[in-house]
């Protein structure tokens, strides 16, 4: 029997999907980095293209030195893009988009820019060095503004894996002077809003068995170790941090019922997201509702459609 399967069937022409250049635009985050990255991947094709069309592009040709500079620019910008992607999620389990990750992210990028400044100094790459300085000062400007709110530090302290140890470690050099003010502001935040929960609990008197006379043994034990109100804040912050990463932050806190005021403190501050990317996602989705043929939709029905869309997906 002759097999109908000949090798011709298997050697059909396979077409490879080619990559194309992407252009940056003003509104999309990290678009310039993505554009440069794609151009570097397509470098051979671009070079060949530029050779062919040299007359039409005239002033805009790229030399080898230019390509090297583009490599450096991509190296500087890469962590920005990575951090953005890492933290733009919804943080359902308490990571990848939660507010406690903000301070470490910015500090990591500042450190990265410091390294880049050393590597590409003023004499060898003057323009890049100046640009790095500008980026650094902009980042530093907003980093200082974060000081206005103790929420960022509080959230990081409330992460059982980091507590105060993160600050003690990463702020021990040039930021040491900010350590105590930060601790005080977080403590104040706790005292203002959460201490009363601890006090309310402390005042709960465990009803003693009224029927019996006070037990001789119980009285002796009470004399030795009187039950005092625990400073829950100190109890937590001075406790040992957990070393193995726990991937469900909120469930860990749900188990800490012996420190209810810290529990509430943690629920309130660890549920804050790092970015307002969700609103951007909503707007992007709403664009699809208002298509060319549905241009006359009014605001009332647009709100109903988009909200319903989101609520149905969230199973509400």
């Amino acid at each position, binding site marked *: 029997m002759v097999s109908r399967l000949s090798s011709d069937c298997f050697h059909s022409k396979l077409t490879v999907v080619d990559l194309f*250049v992407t*252009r*940056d635009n*003003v509104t999309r985050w*990290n678009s*310039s980095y993505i554009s440069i990255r794609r151009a570097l991947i397509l470098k051979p094709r671009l070079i*060949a293209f530029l*050779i062919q069309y040299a007359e*039409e*592009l005239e*002033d*805009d040709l*790229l030399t080898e030195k230019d390509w090297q500079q*583009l490599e450096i*620019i991509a190296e500087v*910008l890469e962590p920005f893009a990575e951090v*953005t992607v890492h*933290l*733009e999620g919804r943080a359902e389990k*308490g990571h990848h988009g*939660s507010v406690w990750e*903000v301070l470490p*992210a*910015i500090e990591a*990028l500042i450190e990265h820019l410091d390294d880049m400044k050393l590597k590409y100094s003023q004499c060898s790459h*003057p*323009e890049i060095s*100046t*640009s790095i300085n*500008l980026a650094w000062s902009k*980042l530093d400007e*907003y980093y200082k*503004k974060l000081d206005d709110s103790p*929420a960022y530090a509080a959230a990081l302290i409330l992460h059982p894996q980091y507590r105060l140890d993160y600050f003690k470690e990463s702020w021990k050099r040039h930021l040491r002077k900010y350590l105590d003010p930060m601790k005080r502001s977080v403590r104040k935040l706790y005292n203002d809003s959460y201490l009363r929960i601890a006090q309310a609990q402390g005042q709960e008197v465990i009803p003693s068995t009224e029927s019996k006379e006070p037990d001789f043994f119980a009285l002796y034990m009470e004399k030795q170790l009187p039950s005092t109100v625990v400073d829950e804040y100190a109890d937590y912050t001075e406790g040992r941090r957990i070393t193995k990463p726990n991937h469900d932050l*909120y469930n860990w806190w749900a188990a800490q019922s012996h420190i209810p005021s810290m529990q509430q403190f943690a629920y309130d501050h660890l*549920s*804050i*997201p*790092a970015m*307002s990317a969700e*609103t951007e996602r*909503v*707007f992007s989705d709403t664009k699809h509702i*208002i298509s060319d043929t*549905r*241009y006359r939709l009014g*605001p009332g*029905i*647009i*709100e*109903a459609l*988009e*909200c*319903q*869309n*989101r*609520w*149905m997906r*969230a199973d*509400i």
Partner: protein
Amino acid sequence: MLRERYPYDCGQIVYPRVEVVSTISQYFQSVPSVLLENCTSQYSTQSRLVLVQIVRTDRVCRGVARVSARGAWKGANGASEGAAAPFVLTETCRHHPRTVNVTHAMSSSFLTPSTPGSSSTPSPSPWPSRSMPKTTDNAFIGWQFNHKEVRYMVCKKTANKRSNTSWIWGEGAELRSPGSLVSTTPKWLCSRCWDRKKVAVFGTTSTTRPIMHLAEEHSVNADGPIEKAASVLEFTPEGREFRSLVSQTSVNVFNNTLIRWIILAHLALSCVENLEFRALVKLLNEGMYEYLYKSGNTIRELILRDFELRKQRVIISLARAKSMIHISFDLWTSGNNLAFLGVVVHYLDETFTARSLLIALRQLSGPHSGENQSFLLVEIIKEFGFEQRLGYFICDNVASNNFAVKFTCESLHIKNPVQRRLRCLGHILNLSAKAFLFGNDEGSFDFEISKLAHLRLEVRQALETLAFWRKRGPIGRLHNIITWIQRTPQRRQQFMDVTIDLASIRNG
């Protein structure tokens, strides 16, 4: 059922539909007329001819009105043999040739016949001795009465200077207050209600209310008696042979699933009117097909209603949250130029999962200032009931957001608004990256040299070099190249077709 005689008595007011011809249009109108003579048809078995006299103030017109087999009156303006003179409604009035001035009231002068050979003037049917004269009475015009503590007088219809007279004046009388006959807008008194001894008065700044009254109470519109409205789609009756019992719960499930699909797939709401879709549903479930909504407007109402219901569920979920409710908001302008404020809340729900949920996408009217945004924010927060449990605000670094947070906190009596204002990390990183690439926040290459005038010379030179490097350095040139390549499909194709010769690259 054919009638031998039109079942009204001579002298009674009837309302045949007659054709009115004007410069702009022709239409049928119910015109009060006095039935003069009842006669049998000489033309066909389908209709009867009766003789009527149109009741008008300054002109008398006689004609023939035709009653059809189903009893509806139709006006005829064709000639009729024998009988009375044709129904001529094209007598001219002062301003518009071929326009009919139709009025409602009757005065003694025009009951006298204008053409000879007509039948005798009927006497108005005896009215039970009551205070309200009938619309056909002589005493009707000029009659004064009190209604809701206002004195009204019935007047002749004032002529219109420019526009045509509305058809409502054929169905009702003009009322004015005796003290101010000229200055005010007249009111309209429904003739039919009046003849039934009821008083129905409406203002006439627009004719909507009288028209609605006539449609609802008397089932009359400009073309005469209203027929039952036809359905939106014409359905052939043959599908009705198959009948199955469909339970209410399965219909509800069907409708909910349909709505869910329409919303999640971004379908047009009028998709239920699409014939191919209907054919598909009919094929799958003939019984359920009967219950498929026929109009996109119904779907719209259902969606709005479901929205309100689900909103209550969201409010309950928020009430059961374990954490404070944090809020982020931003402004956006849609493709159809509406400004929206999008509000998303973040909280820890009762199952200890972090949620980010859209709660409102409302149109912001007025300026885009922080204060204006705060009004809308406070309204939304109170609507969803978490003003006591509001946590932090996360928004981008635009200055108006600072004010929005500040004013919102003031309205809700929250101390320390600065502490509550958190900044979107992505936006901060973006600003920093832009500062690296472009030196400014706009992300463009425009660098205003004039702003550097106050700096020292070396610094200025350094910054100018930098500006030049940005625009004409590798980043700027790469941007230009890519823009050039992407501009036309031909160039895109040329880029993809370029043969990569590695040898030539190394050499050249």
